[in-house]
């Protein structure tokens, strides 16, 4: 077809492009995205790029200061912990646990939540009502408390923590997906499609699902920040990752013993948790704003 513009024609960019355009105008959000990308890379590559063995104890260099302080060595940029393990390598490996596993847990929760949410959203009647009430119950209990309960049943451990957080995040996703679907079903274009003779599954497949990615991505960022904080909190309480796993939360708890002598062993893992969560939230906020602007235009 020729590109001949006879009439004025509204030129629509693809929604993703539009969203991206709005997104990159927000510098903080972009910054968050960059950090998240780096962290994601680290989470995958940390075993290969860490300068030292994160588990190797070296009694010659216990509690070595970071390299920018007095006795620090350049080979150990963030210093060492109280067992002489390289803090930088441990923090890098910790990315896989604290950030990588959080992403896995949230993805798992999202997939299962999507399936159950579709069921909840597409059905009506007494079953759905009971289901929703149970969901409300689960929603009122904070995810961390729910995770603590699940850990109490399963016993402490990193893997159990992941299961616990996955389960604890589920209600959020089911609820979110269910609501989004209900909203979609009320839209005029759905009604029109239905009048065309489409059945439930056709509506779901070709209309509802493509429109779900937006609320889903928002849900994902929110759940991700919760998951990171929860994994860290459980690790800190000693219910999650066990020694010597360098999960950030448990690293903070382990380093508490040397808080006076080596405050950086407490500060750095905590700082990383904070930066990670902040980046996730920045990206989440950025997405939300971008979506809002796109809808407004």
């Amino acid at each position, binding site marked *: 077809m020729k590109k001949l513009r006879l009439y004025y024609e509204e030129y629509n960019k693809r929604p993703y492009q539009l969203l991206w355009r709005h997104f990159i105008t927000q510098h903080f959000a972009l910054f968050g995205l960059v950090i998240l990308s780096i962290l994601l890379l680290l989470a995958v590559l940390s075993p290969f790029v860490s300068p030292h063995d994160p*588990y*190797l*104890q070296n*009694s010659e260099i*216990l*509690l070595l200061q970071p390299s920018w302080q007095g006795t620090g060595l350049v080979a150990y940029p963030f210093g060492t912990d*109280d*067992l*002489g393990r390289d803090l930088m390598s441990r923090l890098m490996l910790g990315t896989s646990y604290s950030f990588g596993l959080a992403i896995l847990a949230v993805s798992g929760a999202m997939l299962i939540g999507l399936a159950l949410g579709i069921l909840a959203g597409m059905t009506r009647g007494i079953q759905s009502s009971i289901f929703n009430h149970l969901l409300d119950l689960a929603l009122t209990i904070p995810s961390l408390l729910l995770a603590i309960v699940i850990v109490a049943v399963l016993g402490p451990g990193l893997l159990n923590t992941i299961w616990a957080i996955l389960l604890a995040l589920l209600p959020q996703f089911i609820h979110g997906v269910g609501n989004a679907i209900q909203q979609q079903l009320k839209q005029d274009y759905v009604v029109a499609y239905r009048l065309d003779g489409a059945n439930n599954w056709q509506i779901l497949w070709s209309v509802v699902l493509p429109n779900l990615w937006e609320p889903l991505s928002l849900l994902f960022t929110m759940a991700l920040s919760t998951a990171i904080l929860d994994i860290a909190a459980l690790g800190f309480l000693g219910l999650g990752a*066990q*020694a*010597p796993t360098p999960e950030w939360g448990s690293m903070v708890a382990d380093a*508490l*013993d*040397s*808080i*006076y*002598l080596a405050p950086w062993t407490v500060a750095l893992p905590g700082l990383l948790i904070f930066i990670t969560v902040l980046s996730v939230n920045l990206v989440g906020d950025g997405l939300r704003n971008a979506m809002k602007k796109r809808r407004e235009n």
Partner: protein
Amino acid sequence: MNFSYCRFGSLSLVLWLTGCQPATVANSGQGLVYCAEGSPESFNPQLVTSGTTIDAISQHLYDRLLDIDANSGDLLPALAQQWHISPDGLTYRFKLRPNVSFHQTDYFTPSRYLTAEDVVFTFNRMLQVEHPFFQTATEYPYFDSIEWRHRVKSITALSSDEVEFKLNQPDSSFLSVLATDFAAILSAEYGAQLVAQQQKPLLDIQPVGTGPFKFRQYQKDVLIRYYRHDNYWRQHGDIQQLVIDIVPDNTKRLAKLLTRECDIAPIPRLAELQMFSNRPDFKVEQQTSMNVAFWAFNTQKPPFDRVEVRQALALAINKPNILQAVYFGQAEEATSVLPPNSWAYRKQNLVQSFDPVKAKELLTQAGYPDGFSIDIWAMPVQRLYNPNAQKMAELIQADLRAIGVKARIVSYEWNTFRRKLRQGEHDSVLIGWSADNADPDNFLRPLLSCAAAVSGSNRANWCDEQFDQFISGAVQTTDVAQRRSYYLAAQQYLQQQMPLMPIAHSKRFQVKNSSVQGVTINPYGGISLVNAGKTP
């Protein structure tokens, strides 16, 4: 004014356990705070051996017939003013101090001073089955371990202020036994009151003694509150209120010291000793102590039933590394269960070299060329002998990985931990022992004898006839040289058998606020605050 408060209190239906008593303590937040590392197990020293409990109760609440001079180790008169030993060494007579008063508390008002009857009541409890309180305790760990019932024939009150102990055999260590913190004198009158009230267990829960402080309140895992005993027979400090604040966490104890929430804290983290000794507002005190930290293998469970395996594991551990990382150099490497300052210490003990290659060979010999998986139980609390078992476990875990042994670190809450240990559920455990007296028997018997394997304090569950013969032989003779040779043989045998791997002997430290003076630590016993004072 205090009186009117009191009446107001009783009128206003405000009831509390201790009710209303004439307020002797103006409670305006004055007093001394001692931050302890754990809760006491009982309020009667007869029933315990743990150093934590002794520190928290014995010197504050009770007196003994004799005291030990903390520096010279000489015996000093305490509740007994004079004593006399018969020429055959079988009869000991003590003349008691007059006008020694017991504590007046909400639950007991003494009507008389200390008499010989109280001393008889106290020591007969562990001797005579027909004593009303004999059955209220399941065991008397210290007195059982020194075989009190075999040593003492009878205890009688000759008059109201004279008491006589008759022994079965001459025993040169008898006076030292009476001077330990376990030999606290109880009140017979209080005992009679409890019998009448049918509240016998309270004897060990709501204590009455003659010590410088009297019991006021105990909240489990939170605090113990003592008031000053105003009618104490000795000159003593003017601390009106002594609070034992129970802070199990090392870091928190230190923080409390820094924020002045604690005046005295035992078992400081060795890493921070330097910082405290550099500060003028704190004072670090040091005392040699007899203790040992060890790694015990549950010899009832494979693969620890094989001597080669135990030897191999011991060889694989880098002890100097542990001393550096866990004790920050403030401990001696242990080559035997007995510390070097014990008279029976075997100097020829081989320093166990760190030799992973040989360890690996031994494992192959034992039929484990590919290693195996074990659990290391690390105690969740800090004790004198081991300030950080978790960290020690991590170090051992890494050392074991090098010889192909996979180790998992296990920990439970302390009470659960001890219960499971007693039941022998562990593979191997990092724990230790603090001595109650200088006798080598006090290390070897409770830790490694067959009897201890039954009672549960033998963490290696190790029962060996040869070894039992050594230690029984040693106590049956009074000749020191002969005893020594028995103990040397026992130590040599232990080094071959390796039911447990001794790791370190730690010094005892405590940090206090510089405004506190007059604190004394006994090498074998608890801390004493009799003369403690605080400058504002």
